[in-house]
């Protein structure tokens, strides 16, 4: 089996690259070690489509973020049927003495091309964000920031890339890379060997290991953990925009985040760790997040929390590492994709395509590139009248499985047809089990639908892949 480009990793970076390259007449393969795409860092983040502020104008991530934000707003959200909400953001200060900091952020943002930045005073805030606490003195308004569902973004990219001929192999870990004498690589993964002219490394937390395997041990990834706490949807209107404090050296601080599904979220923390598998939340993290959020909006209560998770930012120094490695010709790294990697992904993809072209990959556009991806039907996103039409066409949209988030049996089946093979995969695509009861009512029903659609016994069904089986034995 021989490919033009093999991409390691089906997070947002690998998925965006695959989708971008699928415009061209190329043989493409994406290899992903997890059971489904988006099971790495790309599922555990804040879901913010950053405007580009809070980055140095000299940084790669600064301008990739601004460009990624533009691509998403102007093209991709529409083309891929994504629910991008441009809610805007505020960067607040607690001390008038910090006004020059806001001015600096504004100037840096403008240098990067961020539009519409505006300083707003307390009176403006009282009128527009009535829940802000008394400590907040002023803010910088950033209108082009938005929110998106991170995993649905990845699924859309992957589905569209596959539609355009790319191949994806999941549960397929890259374990070895050998250079081919006359150019290219043999990639060992999941017991197979794939030959490729170019290797694109988008392996997230493991990108340093993949780069080293391919002969370029040029950087090291240090995970930086972020804990996030989701609140009940009843608190949806606690803030109208995403609220930031002033950034610190290593992070943007504890934020009040809106999510595209309605539940507000508070977080993330930012602490370096050595362990690339350490996704545990902690008592200390919760206390830090609550304290940070309450400083901006005091009315948060611990009892508002309905879910929490931790994600690890793949950090390789201060900036992204996106380059051809001359010590391993044919290897292009898209690594160290820390925040704002979700936002930047579409721009990273274009940049990677350019690098590949510069190093000899000819990019000939396909005659027919399917730019559009149909938007999947979700009852929770549409008004009742539209639900009625859907249900009249297909009765199974009226068969409600998940009562907290209003998900029908048909949506679960659609998700499986679109590639879900795990309970988390169903949850991320449909929101079933993502609400306040955490699957207390719907889990058995979903498992039964999965049994039917996938043809597995229940004991083979998993939460997120092998090892995470849900049911140990079955009484016949």
């Amino acid at each position: 089996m021989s490919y033009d480009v093999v991409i390691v990793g089906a997070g947002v970076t690998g998925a965006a690259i695959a989708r971008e390259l699928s415009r061209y007449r190329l043989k493409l393969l994406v290899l992903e070690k997890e059971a489904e795409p988006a099971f790495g860092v790309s599922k555990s983040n804040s879901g913010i489509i950053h405007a580009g502020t809070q980055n140095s104008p000299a940084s790669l991530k600064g301008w990739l973020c601004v460009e990624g934000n533009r691509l998403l707003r102007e093209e991709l959200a529409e083309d891929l049927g994504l629910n991008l909400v441009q809610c805007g953001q505020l960067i607040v200060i607690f001390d008038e003495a910090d006004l020059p900091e806001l001015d600096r952020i504004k100037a840096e943002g403008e240098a990067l091309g961020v539009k519409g930045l505006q300083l707003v005073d307390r009176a403006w805030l009282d009128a527009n964000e009535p829940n802000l606490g008394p400590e907040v003195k002023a803010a910088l308004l950033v209108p082009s920031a938005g929110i998106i569902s991170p995993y649905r973004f990845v699924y859309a990219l992957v589905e569209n890339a596959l539609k355009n001929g790319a191949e994806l192999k999941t549960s397929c870990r890259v374990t070895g890379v050998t250079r081919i004498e006359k150019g290219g690589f043999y990639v060992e993964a999941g017991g197979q060997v794939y030959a490729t002219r170019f290797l694109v490394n988008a392996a997230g937390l493991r990108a340093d290991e993949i780069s080293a395997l391919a002969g370029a041990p040029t950087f090291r990834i240090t995970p930086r953990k972020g804990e996030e706490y989701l609140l009940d949807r009843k608190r949806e209107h606690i803030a109208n925009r995403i609220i930031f404090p002033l950034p610190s050296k290593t992070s943007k601080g504890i934020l009040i985040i809106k999510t595209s599904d309605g539940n507000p979220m508070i977080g993330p923390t930012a602490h370096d760790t050595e362990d690339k598998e350490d996704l545990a939340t902690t008592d200390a993290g919760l206390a830090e997040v609550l304290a940070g959020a309450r400083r901006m909006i005091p009315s948060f209560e611990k009892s508002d929390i309905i879910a929490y998770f931790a994600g690890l930012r793949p950090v390789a120094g201060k900036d992204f590492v996106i380059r051809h490695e001359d010590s391993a010709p044919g290897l292009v790294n898209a690594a160290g994709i820390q925040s704002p990697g979700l936002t930047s992904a579409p721009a990273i993809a274009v940049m990677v395509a350019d690098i590949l072209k510069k190093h000899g990959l000819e990019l000939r556009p396909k005659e027919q590139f399917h730019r559009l991806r149909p938007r999947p039907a979700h009852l929770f996103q549409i008004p009742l009248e539209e639900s009625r039409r859907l249900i009249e066409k297909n009765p199974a949209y009226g068969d409600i499985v998940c009562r907290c988030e209003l998900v029908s049996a048909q949506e679960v089946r659609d998700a499986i047809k679109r590639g879900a093979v795990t309970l988390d995969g169903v949850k991320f695509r449909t929101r079933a089990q993502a609400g306040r009861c955490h699957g207390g009512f719907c889990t058995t029903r979903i498992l039964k639908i999965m049994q039917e659609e996938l043809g597995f016994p229940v004991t083979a069904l998993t939460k997120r892949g092998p090892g995470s089986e849900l049911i140990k034995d079955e009484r016949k």
Partner: protein
Amino acid sequence: MRDRELVIVGGGPAGMAAALAARAAGAQDVLLLERDQHLGGILNQCIHPGFGLHHFKEELTGPEYADRFARQVAEDPGIEVSLRSFVVKLTKDREISFLRPGALEEVKARAVILATGCRERTREMIAIPGSRPAGVYPAGLAQKIVNMEGWIPGREAVIVGSGDIGLIMARRMALEGVSVKAVVEIQKTSRGLVRNVVQCLEDFGIPLYFQHRISMIHGRDRVEKVSVVKVDDEFRDIPASGFELSCDTVLISVGLIPENELLEMAGAEMDRKTNGPVAPEVNLTSLPGIFACGNAFKVYDLADSVTRDSELAGRAAARYLGLK
């Protein structure tokens, strides 16, 4: 939009008792909406005995108890039961929208009784730290998995919380051959019935740790172990008191919350602490003509008490409708 006399949302013991009592008090047209494919609510998964001692003066299992009412409901020509019917919207003017396979229906009721039961509090609500592997289940879900589906979720379990559901599930799992390592309770005493502590734990040699909490869940893909720590009277960890229990399953039984999203949507005044309606007396809400009963009104320990109070709700609705 069709007009109906009385619409009852939820076909558990509360909804059924309310429907029958409203009929006895003169209601002619009762529509009973139930999301599930059968009546009975939570009782269907409670296959242990202990139900009906007051109401029927005999000891029944949950499904037997539910069945007695379900049969009366089925035989009553004045009650229309609509199964697989999920109410998605309620207004203060008692307009109701519900989805069922094939249709979105809208009705306007002269009176409404909400009998939507409760949901379980989750791991997240008590914020147990740690990873999020497979094998952490709300105890009621585990009950459904075992009793309704015949699936066994794990082989070694630790149970968080010593209320009745936790105790009953400890025994249920032990009977299925699961090794139940411990029940961990943060309080000094059990909220459950004494007979359950004896019959479900002591008879099976399952240790019960009072004034302890789970301080961490470990395991990447599936639960591997939990850290347990002793707490003082103010729920602060006691240093150096920690130990670990290896297990592949953690069942969370830390209480129930009334399920009242519809009532809230209609604009009723809610008690943010209990998630029940703010009401001067049992079964009332702040909205005229809208009643709540059973576990949706407040969390009950016994199904018999649910039945008793829900009959009152049926009669109150009839009175509101000017009957009798």
